[in-house]
């Protein structure tokens, strides 16, 4: 019975008149894509669920934690890396340059603890730490930072660099002029600006006191670092007339040995700047004291610095003593 009614309905369907509407809009395509869905995301509470890891994996994991969002995690990771470096010496799972490139952004880190730990890590690192261009960039950024704390720790990094990698710092592109200019800005030793008052567009204005309150410590630190930096940069290499002869005698049958042995540092032809953007006077490489001295005088930095030091020496006390050190460094340039 059921089937007969069904059949009847089917038959009736054949004779049903289709309703016709004029000017009806086109129906939607059968292959039209339905876009009425919403995307959802899954959130994990833990970053990693695996338990057992070997030293290498742990080292790499801690290295990756350096860019973590939470401050204690960064500090702990730095701590782990420091001890690992101290224990392992040169046999680290990653080269020192990789560690540096991961850790250098932390120079600008907001937390004091992290920055102190970072300095410890730097000091613990052994072996070749690779090109310093990036590291210097970060250091300079730290030196000009708004926060005094960050400035101080950046200066500490610079001091460390000057102690351990003097030549590399001075000969890296922009290492000489850019750094001195940063110091000039920091100390406000621009020669053109008078310190008592200025008029611009017919408006009179009083400048505020040059030294900020409570900043003496920073100023002293800055002056000390500057003195170290200038001394390192302007001291001519001890010329030993016999050295070349002695060396040649040692290696007697060979000539121009240095040109034939494998380079010791990374990127030995970097100073040629074959692949980078063209450099201007500021970011050029000055690889001996003579050329450094020349550009130092050419840009008028020498005169500005001398004037600035003169003012600073008048302050006396710690600042005066630090300024005297700078003055001594500047004498190196004067002597020529």
């Amino acid at each position, binding site marked *: 019975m059921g089937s007969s009614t069904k059949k009847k309905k089917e038959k009736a369907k054949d004779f049903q008149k289709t309703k016709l509407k004029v000017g009806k809009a086109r129906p939607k395509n059968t292959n039209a894509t339905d876009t009425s869905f919403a995307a959802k995301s899954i959130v994990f509470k833990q970053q990693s669920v695996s338990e057992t890891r070997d030293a290498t994996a742990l080292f790499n994991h801690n290295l990756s934690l350096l860019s973590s969002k939470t401050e204690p995690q960064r500090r702990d990771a730095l701590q782990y890396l420091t001890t690992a470096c101290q224990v392992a010496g040169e046999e680290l799972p990653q080269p020192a340059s990789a560690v540096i490139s991961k850790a250098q952004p932390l120079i600008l880190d907001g937390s004091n603890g992290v920055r102190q730990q970072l300095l410890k890590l730097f000091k613990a690192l052994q072996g070749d730490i690779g090109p310093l261009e990036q590291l210097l960039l970060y250091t300079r950024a730290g030196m000009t930072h*708004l926060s005094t704390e960050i400035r101080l720790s950046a200066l500490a990094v610079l001091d460390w660099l000057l102690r351990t990698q003097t030549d590399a710092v001075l000969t890296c592109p922009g290492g000489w002029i850019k750094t001195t200019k940063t110091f000039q*800005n920091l100390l406000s030793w621009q020669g053109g600006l008078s310190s008592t008052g200025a008029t611009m567009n017919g408006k009179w204005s009083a400048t505020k006191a040059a030294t900020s309150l409570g900043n003496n410590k920073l100023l002293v630190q800055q002056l000390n670092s500057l003195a170290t930096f200038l001394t390192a940069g302007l001291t001519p290499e001890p010329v030993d007339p016999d050295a070349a002869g002695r060396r040649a005698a040692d290696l007697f049958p060979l000539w121009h040995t240095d040109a034939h042995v494998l380079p010791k540092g990374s990127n030995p032809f970097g100073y040629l700047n074959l692949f980078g953007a063209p450099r201007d006077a500021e970011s050029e490489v000055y690889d001996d004291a003579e050329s450094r001295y020349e550009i130092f005088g050419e840009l008028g930095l020498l005169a500005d610095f001398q004037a600035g030091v003169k003012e600073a020496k008048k302050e006396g006390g710690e600042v005066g003593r630090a300024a005297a050190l700078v003055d001594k460094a500047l004498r190196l340039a004067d002597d020529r």
Partner: protein
Amino acid sequence: MKRKVGALEKVDADLPNLQHKIKVDPISYQEDFVNQYGLYTSIHELFLTSPTTTDDTGLVRLRDLIDFISHTADCYPKIAGSFPNDLIKLLQLHHATLDPELRDKIVGSLVLLRKKDMIDSNTLLNTLWPLLVSTPSKSLRALLYQKIVSDLRNSNSKTTNHKLNRSMQTTCYNLIASDPASPKGIWAVKLTRELWKRQVWSDAKAVSIMEIAALSQEAKVVTGGVRFFLGGDQEREEAADEESDQEEKNISMGKLRHQAGINKKTAKRDNDLRAAAKKVKRNEKKKGAPHPLNFSALHLLHDPQGFAEKLFQQHLQPSQPKVRLNLEQKLFVLQLVSRLVGLHKLTLIPLYSYFLKFLTPRQPSVTSFLASLAQATHNLVPPDVLEPLVQKIANEFVSEAAAAQVASAGLNGIREVCVRQPLAMNETLLQDLVQYRKSKDKGVQMAARGLLSLYREVGAEMLRKRDRGRDAAMKVRSGEMDGARRFGHVEEGGIEGLELLEKWKEEQGQEGSEDEAAGWDNWDARSDSSESSGGWVNVESEGEEIDISDSEDEREKGAEKKRKMENARVKKAVGKENVDEDDKPAEKTPAKLEASQRATASLEPAAALKREEARVSTLATTRILTPADLAKLQELRQSAAVTASLPSAKRRKLQQDAAAKTAARHADDAVTAVDIEGLAKLSHKATKEEKVRMAKGLGLPNGATEDAGANDHRSTTARRKEKKAAEGKSTTNREKARKKNFLMTLGKAKRKGKRSLGETAKVLKAHVERGKRGGRRGNK
């Protein structure tokens, strides 16, 4: 030990604060700026070495520094001279990989630097435009587009910046012209349309951008260009209306002054009042200013014929076109082509045969095709091209077997075609179609009647004798009908109500030149100063006198003389009146009535009519109408309109009004599918469900497009209640009074009768007082 932080140091670490201080006293804070700029340069350098990292490290973000420097750079142009170029380079090189927030900040900073005149508009637009075209980010595109539009509007706000406009228009044009197949052209289209809408660009160059867009090889660009021509001008008008609406919603000075009198007087309030007064004055001035004359895009086209031909040949005619358009897009193109053909009276013969295959009831959106066909028809289209089309519509749509909706759409389509080219119809077909006015269905009936009334006016001799009606039959008998039935015949123009003025002058006897001179003397009746009008008299009246003396002599014998000489011309004029009738129905009726009455009365009705016509034409061609004349003309027209609304004329007037509504459409307006479907709606029978829904005020089911107001079957009370609710009110006082419990009203009614005279007076006074105050609580 914790180091003490000096107050000054704390403050300087705060960039917004420093920014404010720098703006106040740039010289003193130069050192601080130099320090910040140094920080910016070092961070910027760092950033350049790895632009993909987010700049969230440390305390200071590059974003904040950029913001700070862009706000203060104008104070130290020497120090920060390279800053804009830095930003531009950063954006150009790394826009795809930058952090979105930083990227948006850079764009915003560039615009800010433009506002501070650190860079010029050209540089800004040349930076932003290529990014807009090339960036894959949607949000950046939206931002860039908005900035570009606002910059263009700003630089055109006081005076038109032709140089900038030209360079930008050339860029847009080249973008499409250089690569017609790329979808990037859509941005040129979008920008042009927006600026057209805002009336920033309203010249032929902008139209030429859209022209090339419509002829490009990318579906979206083509549609954008075509839709601009179809709707751009309407959009512009609407935008202008909206703007003026917003202005009208302004302050009422009286209220402000009143408030100023009450409130405490302060300098700020004084200033506010003054500013408001100024604004009101400005708005008044703007209202008085002449409407900016803007040509529509369709009229600014350089070569409409070429454009229409190219559009048709490129997108519609070929079976394998370069760009595949879907039906909807094709319909847009077709609408534009037919619009161009209709508006500029172009000749595009292959277009009509193209229509042939689409004219079946089963074709989707067939009413749009019918509308396009009607649009493409004008009086210079050869009738033999249209005849097969009309025949096909009649065969496919109009038959007893076809659904009522289909038949009425077909009849309507035929009518729209025949309004524009009456010669497209042949006699047998017309007589056949007119039969449908006996149909049972309302829609078909009305459509057929429309066709009938059309042919009563333009070709009554084609109708059967009993279908012609009285007026048409009389005209056919007097032989006035054949003038309009010739191909290529063009009507003369006329001045509305001129015959009324002529008659009035005759009655007044005011034909002499002195009167005319007097008319020029007080041509501006309302203005008191006669200085300007004096100038008018001296120059105009001399020439006028000569002219008039000429025409006056002729006019006496003109009726007889011209009857023979200008027979053909007069006939045409009569024809014109017939065709043009719907344009000015109310005004002309008395004259026409009069004419027809005279015609029935006299033995030679045609002669009388001709005499009338001859006189009218001489008035318009031999005299310059003075402003006084025009004022009188206006007055006469109005009085004629009043007489026309007398009961006897009322029915006729109603009929003609309906006809006028369809015919009085401006030539620029488009025929749409709705016009064709209009009567088909009458054929639709509502189902029970639909009726129930309408009674509930829910509107039509499954989102039908008809407006709810037309099908609102609810009671008046329900409607009123809804209106009240929309206003945020509940019930009227009347309603409350009506619903009040009867027993509660009893006491008052009892008491009311026993009140003393004094009490009554007091109550009445209180009532008046309350009315003045505006209710019990006072309408403050």
